[in-house]
């Protein structure tokens, strides 16, 4: 062992003598020193964010109304403090029924008012009862409070005055600061809540600075080590010694890695200390980034070393390494692009059993029916005159749901919250079996409809963040246009319409909604609140219970019998009808759930996550169901039809399983298009065997943030709710194994070459 240790030691000796190590360590020190002053300042919570306005229209109308009276009130006080243009704009907006337009001036003004010591006057708030926290502050004397405390007091007073329109403020907020200069980034959360987002930010920054720039610098710095050793003259002396040539090569390789390890350990260790000391974020997993980035470097360095022994030239080594990186990038990008642009749009996301027919919807919003004679999916329900958008940017559908009585399917275009210029014309789409499922337009649906349900009694219900609505009257809209100089002027409608069929609620955009097919109970979940509605004797809904969460939880709900299931990332909570927590389960589909559904008999719960994994749970037996489901990891939709369960996997295949024994009973799959064939049999296998250094960043991300799955964590990747399903796989060990295999093969080839070569 001694000779090989001597070679490793000599690599350091060389690095120290060449001053490269010193230069790198000095640069790292400068970077760390520049980061040391960065930190958080904790303040009393007062920040008013955009998300805190629960009902903007109502707030504006209230302020305008209060402004018109002479009686002192919080609204009147706000009106007084507003400038003239904002007042005029508010008056204009208040007249419009759809008053969600320009809100920004008011929001900014309110934020400014919170900072004013004279905002709160006792006479204005005479009719408002302040919460205890505010009274405690008032007791200390408002003019004596430090700025962040009186801002908090003002904010509490504002919340108390408009409890339905403005969300309550958490007790603390944090400011990002450099030394003591506030950087103007206020976050209305406690310090700990930011840690997951910070972890993600760190991983992203590390991926760029270490994963790309750092590795490149490291490859440059180490590129000459092996060629120099194997140069004529140098190698003769070494080879005359009683050592193995492979050992010499590997020791040199390890020497280069060890040299980089020192630098990486210093940088990441320093970062870890700064985060711990300055931010209180002691994430020991950050230290795992040292071996992981070293591993990433080793992959590139193995290529550099191989080129180094073959060509014995540092420049050729660097060029070959860059070339290798480029090829990896091309293969990875091609694979990703084909998945995203060609395959993912075709992935089935909804399955509907419509009597004898099986109807599916893909990511692109195309509705298709299984054609038994052609053995292929046949498009139906096509939007007339609406061109299909490329690359899966098609409009997504809510539904369809199948109405067995009318033998028809019903669907709605999905309205993106806050992004619905066309929402005024959101209509119900109807397709009749007798009409070959042709799409025709029906009545308007309420704004922001995120789910359609058929109540046990046969009523069609539309669910939105405002509550539950029922269709009254005929669903086909008999609306006629008159054509005036080429313009279509609609005449008033004469069809049915959706009316409120339960209490009005002001929820945020819904994360999930579910109906119990037996009792008709409905659960709505917006990430902060879980609300359960049950029908009364007339069928009209009443709010039965509600559960609030302090922090946003992305998740889905399902209802069965007497249980409400809330499916969150990595956990499943079972509540009773009073929304009291009964138990918490850990499903094997541990990613962010995309659907949670219950079989019609209420026995089987199916949870599908973003990673395409399906988890089945026997509600009666209270145990996971051990069915063997084909295509786990690639499952994109699940549905129940009587005694069978339908599972979509491998893009467009639908397998049917018998719920009694879990056996597959039928399989529907159309012919594979050429692009998919190329992907499946050529591109993807190449991608699989190719090293994926880039994916190691995913591993770092997964390792660093895996602790952050606990509820309430604020994360950077919370996309819009109901975002199109992407097959997103955070595979931790996959990249490690494939890269390790590559590393071993390259090193073995290099050893073989070195051993056989005449020097």
């Amino acid at each position: 062992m001694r000779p090989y240790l001597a070679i490793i030691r000599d690599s350091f000796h060389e690095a120290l003598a060449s001053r490269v190590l010193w230069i790198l360590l000095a640069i790292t020190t400068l970077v760390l020193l520049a980061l040391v002053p960065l930190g958080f300042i904790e303040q009393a919570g007062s920040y008013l964010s955009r998300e805190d306005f629960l009902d903007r229209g109502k707030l504006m109308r209230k302020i305008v109304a209060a402004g018109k009276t002479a009686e002192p009130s919080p609204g009147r006080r706000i009106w007084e403090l507003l400038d003239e243009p904002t007042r005029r704009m508010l008056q204009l907006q208040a007249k419009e029924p759809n008053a969600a337009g320009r809100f920004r001036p008011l929001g900014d003004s309110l934020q400014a008012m919170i900072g004013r010591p004279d905002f709160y006057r006792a006479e204005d708030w005479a009719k408002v009862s302040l919460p205890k926290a505010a009274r405690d502050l008032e007791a200390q004397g408002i003019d004596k409070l430090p700025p962040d405390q009186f801002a908090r007091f003002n904010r509490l007073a504002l919340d108390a005055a408009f409890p339905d329109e403005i969300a309550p403020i958490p007790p603390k907020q944090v400011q990002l600061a450099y030394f003591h200069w506030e950087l103007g980034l206020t976050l209305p959360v406690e310090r700990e809540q930011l840690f997951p987002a910070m972890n993600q930010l760190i991983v992203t920054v590390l991926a760029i600075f270490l994963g790309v720039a750092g590795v490149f610098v490291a490859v440059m710095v180490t590129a000459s080590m092996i060629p120099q050793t194997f140069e004529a003259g140098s190698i003769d002396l070494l080879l005359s010694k009683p050592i193995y040539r492979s050992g010499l090569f590997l020791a040199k390789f390890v020497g280069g890695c060890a040299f980089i390890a020192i630098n990486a350990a210093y940088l990441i260790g320093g970062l870890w200390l700064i985060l711990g000391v300055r931010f209180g974020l002691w994430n020991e997993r950050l230290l795992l980034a040292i071996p992981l980035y070293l591993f990433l470097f080793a992959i590139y360095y193995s290529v550099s070393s191989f080129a180094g022994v073959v060509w014995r030239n540092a420049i050729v080594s660097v060029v070959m390494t860059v070339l290798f990186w480029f090829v990896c990038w091309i293969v990875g990008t091609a694979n990703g692009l084909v998945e995203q642009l060609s395959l993912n749009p075709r992935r089935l996301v909804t399955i509907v059993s419509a009597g004898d027919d099986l109807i599916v919807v893909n990511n692109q919003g195309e509705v298709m029916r299984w054609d038994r004679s052609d053995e292929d999916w046949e498009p139906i329900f096509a939007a007339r005159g609406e061109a299909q958008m490329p690359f899966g940017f098609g409009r997504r559908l809510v539904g369809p749901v199948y109405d067995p009585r009318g033998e028809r399917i019903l669907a709605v275009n999905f309205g993106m919250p806050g992004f619905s210029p066309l929402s005024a014309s959101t209509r119900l789409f109807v397709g009749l079996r007798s009409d070959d499922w042709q799409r025709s337009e029906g009545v308007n649906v309420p704004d922001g409809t995120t789910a359609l349900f058929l109540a046990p009694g046969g009523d069609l219900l539309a669910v939105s963040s405002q509550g539950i609505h029922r269709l009254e009257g005929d669903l086909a809209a008999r609306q006629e246009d008159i054509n005036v100089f080429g313009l279509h002027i609609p005449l008033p409608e004469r069809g049915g319409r959706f009316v409120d069929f339960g209490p009005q609620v002001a929820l945020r955009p819904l994360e999930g909604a579910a109906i119990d097919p037996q009792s008709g109970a409905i659960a709505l979940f917006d990430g902060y609140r879980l609300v359960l509605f049950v029908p009364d004797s007339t069928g009209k809904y009443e709010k039965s219970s509600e559960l609030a969460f302090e922090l946003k939880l992305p998740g889905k709900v399902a209802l069965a019998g007497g249980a409400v299931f809330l499916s969150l990332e990595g956990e499943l909570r079972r509540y009773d009808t009073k929304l009291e927590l009964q138990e918490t389960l850990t499903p094997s589909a541990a990613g962010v759930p995309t659907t949670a559904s219950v079989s019609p008999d209420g026995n089987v719960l199916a949870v599908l996550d973003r990673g395409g994994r399906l988890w089945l749970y026997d509600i009666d037996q209270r145990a996971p169901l051990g069915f063997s489901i084909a295509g786990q990891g690639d499952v994109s939709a699940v549905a129940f039809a009587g005694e069978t369960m339908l599972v979509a996997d491998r893009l467009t295949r639908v397998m049917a399983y018998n719920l009694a024994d879990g056996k597959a009973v039928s399989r529907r799959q159309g012919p594979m298009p050429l692009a998919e064939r190329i992907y499946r049999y050529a591109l993807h296998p190449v991608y699989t065997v190719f090293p994926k250094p880039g994916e190691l960043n995913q591993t770092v991300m997964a390792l660093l943030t895996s602790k952050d799955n606990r509820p309430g964590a604020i994360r950077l990747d919370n996309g819009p709710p109901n975002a199109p399903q992407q097959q997103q796989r955070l595979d931790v060990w996959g990249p490690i194994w494939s890269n390790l295999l590559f590393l071993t093969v390259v090193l073995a080839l290099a050893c073989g070459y070195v051993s056989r070569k005449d020097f």
Partner: protein
Amino acid sequence: MEQRPLPASDMTKPWAVNVQNLRKTYRDGLWGRRRIEALAGVSLDVQRGEIFGLLGPNGAGKTTLIKVLLGMVGASGGAATLLDRPAGSRAARKEVGYLPEHHRIPRHHTGNSALTFFGNLSGLSRAEVARRRGPLLATVGLAEWGNTSIKKYSKGMMQRLGLALAMLHDPLLLILDEPTDGVDPVGRSEMRTVLLQLKAAGKTVFINSHLLQEVELVCDRVAILDRGRVLQQGSIAELTARAQSEVRLIVAGSEDQLRRALAAGPAVDTRALGPDQFEIVLAAPDQATIDGTIDRLRGQGMSLISLSPTRHTLEEAFLSILKQARGNP
């Protein structure tokens, strides 16, 4: 995986080096179609305790032979043994100290650290190297230079350090490729002293050189290599004697007598030195030729004035052997 050690050659005698019919063919050009025969069946042996010189013009295959012996280059055929171990094996390399031609010690070393590094590679501990390096550096004349960066070393000093590196682990066999290259005359003389000391200590030294005077001064035996073949092998005395020597006869008599006397024997060079006095040069004669020639000259009544054999230096012998070999390939 390693370069396969060569099959062991004759192991009946305690050779330091024994090479039998060793061949090495390099492939060159596109797809390796051109073949270069670097060693075309080399056989030689070096006895233990002697200083052996391998001579040959540039490109004769001297360095290739050494590289094959040390396992740096794989042989195409033949057999070789170093110290009774298959040549090229790690066991054989353990007992060998090597000074390569144009060797390059990594520039970040000092004399001492280079000794430590290469000592470690030979399996010596740092402490052992520290113990040995003082006397060793003094032996090669670098006593004051141990802590100096080798960037500051002259070419001659690098050769001295190279010799120290080869001697560091006290090997039984030293293989020195052009050891006096770039060394000044005083240094060469010192180096010769070191080599003789090594010999006195029972070590075997294998020198590869084209500086024939040097070789002549220290080597016991030599081999002459040309175009991958051993032309001659033996002690220096044997080699110089065996090389084509001349015998010059100066005789007195008439030109007629001379012509008649030489007509019967082999053709020889003659030259008139004056009236009735001639010089006859017999090239590489054996004793019978000399006797026969004298008998015939005397038979014709000529008188023998002088007979002088001329003996070659190693250099002349080398050139003459080479010339002879290239003249009749």
